[in-house]
């Protein structure tokens, strides 16, 4: 074990040295400069994704063929390393020129550090470009009235998926209200199936419940205040009420007894739904593609159903609101050495016909206005047009809280949330802990 400890020590020492040297380079680099990867091409940083990366590659090579400003180059990273690397790189000469992000508070930290180019003038000069994206999606990269990102892939709202066969067997209708959902939970429990599949070993799956409930109970303004850091924002009565709705649901046995060890990445919750061991599953729109890949016979038999999150009676929020990931964005690094290339890329390549067509063909629902006709022609049109309509008709699209809050608060919140689902934290305790955070 000692040798293990030493290697780990050396590794972390290396990481620190790297961070330190990057910071040091930042100070000795050209004054005020943040951009440029050293090479001639503008660096575009994105996440590794087997489906998306080839589409991005071909988009960039098309761009390179026609662009007069210069060339771009794609670099991809794994999810967690990406966040860490981007953070350190943005204040160093190793910064990319265009970077992938989730919008919201996640982007806000970069904006506050002065690292992101304001794209508002470009969008104002070119209303056609602005109007080519779904407004509620574009807004997720809007901070203090300024736009800092351009949508670069599909929308990912969270929907209530269900197993039609299981619901039929229990004679349960697809719930439209919270009361109906509770009744469905009881009926499914009586049938001996887990009413709702939940991948509770990962707290972001639990987050979806509280996000929707707070939106339905209190409306989007309540979370907006929390995100803006207004004092006492967590103490809004709607927060407590929606936390209580969650604990009621847990106490009712809606998620069964085993949820704390079910994982999403390993396909746990999706398999439970597909095998008929659960009735519902609240998940992002990517669930459909996953089910299609993992349990094609389940989808092809028509047993996979989807519905909007139920309305909460007496709640202030519009039941048409959605939560999830509006989309991912490309943002331009302020003071980039390849500013012209970077800006030309994000303003011309992301609503490009071929790019959008490629996304649709891959099963994505691009955040581009008027893409519905194209979706109707493509495979899985039932589902993709439903998702498109859901998002286009949504007055508000709340970005996932863990992306919208600053990282330290998000981490704390995910911890407290998991404790709440486990019954180790009370709604009151959650509010107190988050107010103090």
């Amino acid at each position, binding site marked *: 074990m000692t040798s293990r400890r030493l290697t780990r020590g050396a590794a972390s020492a290396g990481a620190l040295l790297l961070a330190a040297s990057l*910071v040091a380079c930042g100070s000795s680099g050209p004054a005020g400069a943040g951009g440029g990867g050293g090479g001639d091409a503008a660096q575009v940083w994105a996440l590794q994704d087997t489906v998306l990366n080839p589409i991005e590659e071909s988009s960039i090579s098309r761009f390179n063929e026609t662009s007069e400003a210069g060339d771009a180059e794609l670099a991809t990273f794994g999810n967690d390393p990406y966040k860490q690397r981007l953070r350190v790189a943005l*204040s160093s000469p190793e910064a990319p020129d265009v970077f992938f992000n989730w919008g919201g508070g996640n982007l806000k930290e970069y904006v506050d550090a002065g690292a992101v180019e304001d794209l508002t003038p470009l969008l104002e000069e070119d209303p056609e470009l602005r109007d080519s994206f779904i407004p509620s999606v574009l807004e997720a990269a809007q901070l203090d009235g300024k736009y800092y990102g351009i949508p670069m892939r599909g929308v990912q709202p969270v929907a209530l998926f269900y197993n039609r066969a299981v619901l039929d067997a229990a004679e349960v209708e697809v719930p439209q209200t919270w009361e109906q959902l509770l009744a469905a939970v009881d009926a499914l429990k009586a049938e001996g199936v887990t009413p709702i599949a939940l991948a509770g070993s990962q707290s972001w799956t639990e987050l979806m419940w509280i996000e929707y409930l707070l939106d339905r109970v209190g409306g989007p303004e309540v979370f907006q205040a929390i995100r803006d850091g207004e004092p006492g924002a967590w103490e809004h009565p709607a927060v407590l009420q929606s936390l209580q709705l969650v604990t009621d649901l847990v106490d009712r046995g809606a998620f069964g007894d085993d949820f704390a060890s079910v994982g999403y990445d390993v396909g746990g919750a999706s398999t439970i739904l597909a095998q008929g061991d659960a009735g519902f599953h609240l998940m992002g729109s990517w669930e459909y593609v996953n089910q299609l890949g993992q349990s094609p016979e389940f989808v092809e038999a028509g047993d996979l159903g989807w519905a909007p999150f139920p309305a909460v009676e007496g709640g202030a929020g519009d039941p048409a609101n959605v939560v999830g990931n509006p989309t991912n964005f490309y943002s331009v690094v302020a003071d980039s050495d390849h500013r012209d290339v970077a800006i030309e890329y994000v303003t011309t390549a992301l609503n490009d016909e071929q790019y959008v067509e490629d996304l649709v063909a891959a099963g994505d629902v691009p955040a581009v206005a008027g893409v519905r006709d194209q979706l109707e022609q493509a495979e899985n049109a039932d589902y993709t047009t439903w998702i498109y309509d859901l998002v286009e008709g949504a007055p508000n699209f709340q970005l996932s809280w863990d992306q919208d809050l600053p990282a330290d608060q998000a981490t704390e919140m995910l911890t407290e949330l998991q404790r709440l689902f486990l019954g*180790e934290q009370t709604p009151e305790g959650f509010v107190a802990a988050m107010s103090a955070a």
Partner: protein
Amino acid sequence: MAGTTLVTTAPSPAPTPRGRPRGTRERPSGWYLAPALAFFGFFAVLPMGLVVYLSFTDWNGFGFPQPSGAANWERLVADGEARDALLLTLLFMVVTWAVQTPIALLIGVWAAGRQRNRAVLSSLFFLPLLLSTAAIALLWASVLDPNFGVTQALPFLDRFNFLGDTDIVIYTVVWVVSWQYVPFHTLLYQGAARQIPHSLYEAATIDGAGRYRQFFTITLPLLKYTVITSSVLMIVGSFTTFDTILILTGGGPGTTTRIAPLYMYITGFSGFEFGYASAIAVLLLVLGAGLSLFVTRVTGFRAMQSQQEGL
């Protein structure tokens, strides 16, 4: 250096025996230390210094760390989560030691025999040591899965939710870590047990001592220093265990397996509070170093040259 001395010492590696034949106590030049010192300074001392410096700053990864005085340390003193994480680490440390030591000792002594089947069985048994930690954690995560795991097919075990029940998940982690490292400690015990001279057992047999008596009066006392070595490694190791838990449970469910190193990692690399995470790291460094010093001092580990006096 005279040519004759060179001839006599030729087979041994260079520096140490150089002066001996002439009867002087010449020491190797201090410069031989330079590469090691440089490495140690660059990869151990410098980062440690940086971490100590960072622990007095506020840094979210952007720009430069902002000095924040003792704020991180004040927060650490008042942090209930950090206290829970340390207590959990302590529990984990004690339980892994208590589980691994007897098992490793017994198997090690058993494997020290020289029959053929033991050699085969021992090499099979050492397999976990060859697997990477990530593979082990993923393997056990699937075996213990409450919906699809192997345990669900077994009577009695199917009623447990090993990775989801907040009361037992820490013991599940102990089990997995032990499964991974018992073979290593067994190896230590096997080697040590083989060093015990056979004549002792022959004499004991003549005196009429049975196997148990032989184990407790010969084997165990003579393995004393191996027990200490193995315990130091176990304690220091479990104090820094991190990778297995990160992959197996991620510190969850809730915070039930969030031991101190994991708490530091989550604070630093999920919350991006590098200053505060550094304070936790410094605390862990001090506690870890103190602990291993304490164990070596109290057990007389340093005086271990002679295990078999008079033999």
